[in-house]
């Protein structure tokens, strides 16, 4: 099997396992899903090696080259994002396998398979229509996953569906314009042929709006703090860590391919940056004011989305756009790893304490120190503090902002971290207890061992990657963004 065929594994393996899981008993479904995640992780490593060796791995599906056929390609961005997705799915499914509360029902298994296949597909897609279908698959799976949170989550799921599908329609319109203007839906070919500033600007603008809705970028964010906490904990983790990344990546890809072609890209990018800045502040301030763990973490996602889009204005102004690209990608990766850890740990705390309200968590730090530590470490990474992966991303974005003389983005990067750590510290504070105030006051239900280990392992991963990020950066630089695939 050639390296090219490897590109398909992260898509078809979870898809097949997901389909099987629909009809298999829970144990078998869980085992298969975990195995598939491990295999996906290994394939990500192999793809990473291939990218380091010879640049992007390209695959013309069914042997038909664009424009007739569909091109899939894995570059550095694809590889690291597939790695993230494998890790996130592995973590969430391990916990869900250990404790059914985290899953919400049997449908969790097939739907997670579908969601994983869809996000991985988005990461390798170089065809805008295929990306659209993948986004819809992801929407269906995610909406159904949210609805697993019980009867009351249906309203949240439906609200999510309306926003997500409306976003998809904006993107489909962008696809139609791409086809109408260039006669193809293959990204690279379309970028080669596109020559009308206005149409290309419209394609970017429509994608920005559509993906902003799906990613919950301010001011289109209001569905997220409703939908994410409504879901079971393992689902919340996947939604925040992984699902929103798919639409982010599509936004990035469109910027990567079409951004250089139009003068309208720069003002659009600035608009994206402003929205991102507002997201960081608004999400951060609201996270500070919530009093439930899951709600705080969901608003934290709203805020962090702001950082993930911050690279968009920076790649247009920095003298070395690669620094901005890599910094933004690393921040996004760091968010993924940290958010899975945080949501799973929050789920464990809530299960143990019987409530997710902050004022009911007193004393959990003594009983479940590892779980609280996972939240703390994850918060450190989200805040971009050393020695975590979040710091690496922030460092590079700070470099890019300084380089571009972009003082506003710089202030945001620096100040936003404080806000992040403020709400993390607020969660941590709630778990402390005054001495003597706790002995036997309330028995905590102890969660399964896996439930304690997995979030901590992810938090530890943030630290390890924060200390040796060069490997990731090598993979990301092997196929520079904007270099074409």
């Amino acid at each position: 099997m050639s390296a090219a065929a490897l590109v398909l594994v992260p898509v078809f393996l979870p898809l097949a396992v997901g389909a099987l899981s629909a009809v298999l008993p829970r144990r078998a479904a869980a085992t298969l899903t975990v195995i598939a995640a491990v295999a996906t992780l290994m394939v990500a490593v192999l793809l990473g090696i291939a990218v380091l060796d010879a640049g992007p791995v390209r695959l013309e599906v069914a042997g038909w080259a664009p424009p007739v056929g569909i091109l899939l390609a894995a570059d550095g961005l694809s590889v690291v994002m597939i790695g993230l997705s494998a890790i996130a799915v592995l973590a969430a499914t391990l916990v869900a396998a250990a404790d059914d509360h985290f899953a919400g029902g049997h449908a969790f298994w097939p739907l997670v398979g579908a969601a994983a296949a869809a996000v991985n597909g988005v990461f390798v897609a170089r065809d805008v229509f295929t990306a659209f279908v993948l986004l819809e698959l992801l929407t269906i799976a995610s909406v159904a996953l949210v609805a697993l949170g019980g009867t009351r989550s249906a309203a949240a799921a439906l609200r999510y569906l309306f926003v997500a599908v409306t976003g998809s329609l904006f993107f489909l319109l962008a696809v139609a314009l791409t086809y109408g203007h260039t006669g193809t839906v293959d990204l690279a070919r379309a970028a080669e042929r596109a020559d009308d500033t206005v149409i290309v600007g419209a394609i970017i603008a429509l994608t920005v709006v559509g993906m902003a809705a799906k990613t919950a970028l301010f001011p289109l964010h209001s569905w997220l703090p409703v939908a994410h906490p409504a879901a079971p904990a393992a689902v919340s983790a996947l939604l925040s860590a992984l699902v929103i990344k798919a639409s982010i990546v599509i936004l990035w890809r469109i910027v990567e391919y079409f951004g250089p072609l139009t003068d309208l890209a720069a003002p659009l990018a600035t608009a994206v940056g402003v929205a991102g800045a507002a997201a960081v502040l608004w999400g951060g301030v609201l996270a500070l004011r919530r009093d439930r763990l899951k709600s705080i973490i969901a608003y934290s996602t709203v805020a962090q989305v702001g950082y993930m889009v911050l690279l968009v204005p920076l790649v247009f102004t920095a003298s070395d756009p690669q620094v901005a690209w890599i910094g933004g990608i690393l921040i996004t990766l760091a968010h993924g790893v940290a958010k899975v850890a945080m949501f799973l740990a929050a789920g464990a705390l809530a299960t143990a304490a019987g409530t997710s309200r902050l004022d009911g968590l007193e004393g959990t730090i003594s009983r479940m120190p590892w779980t609280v530590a996972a939240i703390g470490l994850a918060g450190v990474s989200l805040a971009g503090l050393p020695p975590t992966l979040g710091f690496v991303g922030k460092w590079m974005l700070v470099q890019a902002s300084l380089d571009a003389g972009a003082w506003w983005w710089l202030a945001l990067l620096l100040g936003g971290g404080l806000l992040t750590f403020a709400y993390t510290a607020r969660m941590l504070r709630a778990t402390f207890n005054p001495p003597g105030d706790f002995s036997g006051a309330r028995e905590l239900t102890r969660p399964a061992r896996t439930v304690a280990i997995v979030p901590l392992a992810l938090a530890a991963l943030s630290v390890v990657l924060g200390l040796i990020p060069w490997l990731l950066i090598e993979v990301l630089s092997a196929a520079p963004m904007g270099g074409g695939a």
Partner: protein
Amino acid sequence: MTVIAFSDVDVLDMLVVAAVAVTAILAIAIPRRVGATIAFLVFGLLLALLWARVAAPDVAIAEAALGGGVAGALLVDALHRRQPAQPNRDRRRAVAITAVGAALGAVTFAALATVLSRLTAEPADLGPLALEAVERSGVSHPITAVLLNFRNLDTLLEIAVVVFAAVGAAALSRDRIRTVTDPGPVRRVIAVIIVPALVLLAAWLLVAGTSEPGGAFQAGAVLGAALIIAHLCGVRPARAAGGRALVLVVAGLLAFILLGGIGLAATGTWLALDLSWAFAAILAIETLLTVSIGVALAMLFLAAGSRDDAAAADRAADAPALGGAP
């Protein structure tokens, strides 16, 4: 099949477009669900008519079958459920919101129209390229070639969308799909006449699809309609429990993925079809997909339209729009 493009606008086109626009406005503006749904049903049929005008008969059939099915399910829903009372909104505020919405919509439309006006009328070269490649695809109908050969990845993913929608729907309404235990005389007759007719139609669409308009989607949609009607009429095999139905649903998807693997083994390229067996493979996979899609759609809309007990199902069975056979 040819249509007069880039000539002066045909009066018929104008009329149909106007009708489509009017029904669209009605579909969103009528406050009662029943009315809005009926307007939507008409909107779908008019769209199908338009598809025929732009030389897209495949889409027309699919639109008629699926659009009709969707609208039918919506209609059943609207007919048998009490529309929740809208919270009493201040009339003035409602008017203001509508006005702002209309203004923003107008601006958006103007912007969009400006962009669209820049699209050149030159035909893209993709069409000729694709048509040229059809010869090497194993089937003669271009759209089937695109769906099951050139862009079969999209098709596979689309099946996945339907399959996982059915999985999700089944999970969310597990105990709610009820069968009709005592069908009345009307439904017995429907079951005996309409269901076999629809199944036959599905089979024809499937086989014909390799050379003419039609194919797995259209056939699947019709089969789905047949299954829903059969179910509502109390036909036994249609009462398959969720689990067994799911097996049928995922089978098509898994077979499609397996075909990819076979392609990989045989030609070295995932999902590639060798010309020598492409036709057989396409037909085989289309058959499985038809079953998959049919059962999935049936599950989806039964789950959607079920919750009510037998009494509601009674009325549902008599609602002619269900399934919307062409």
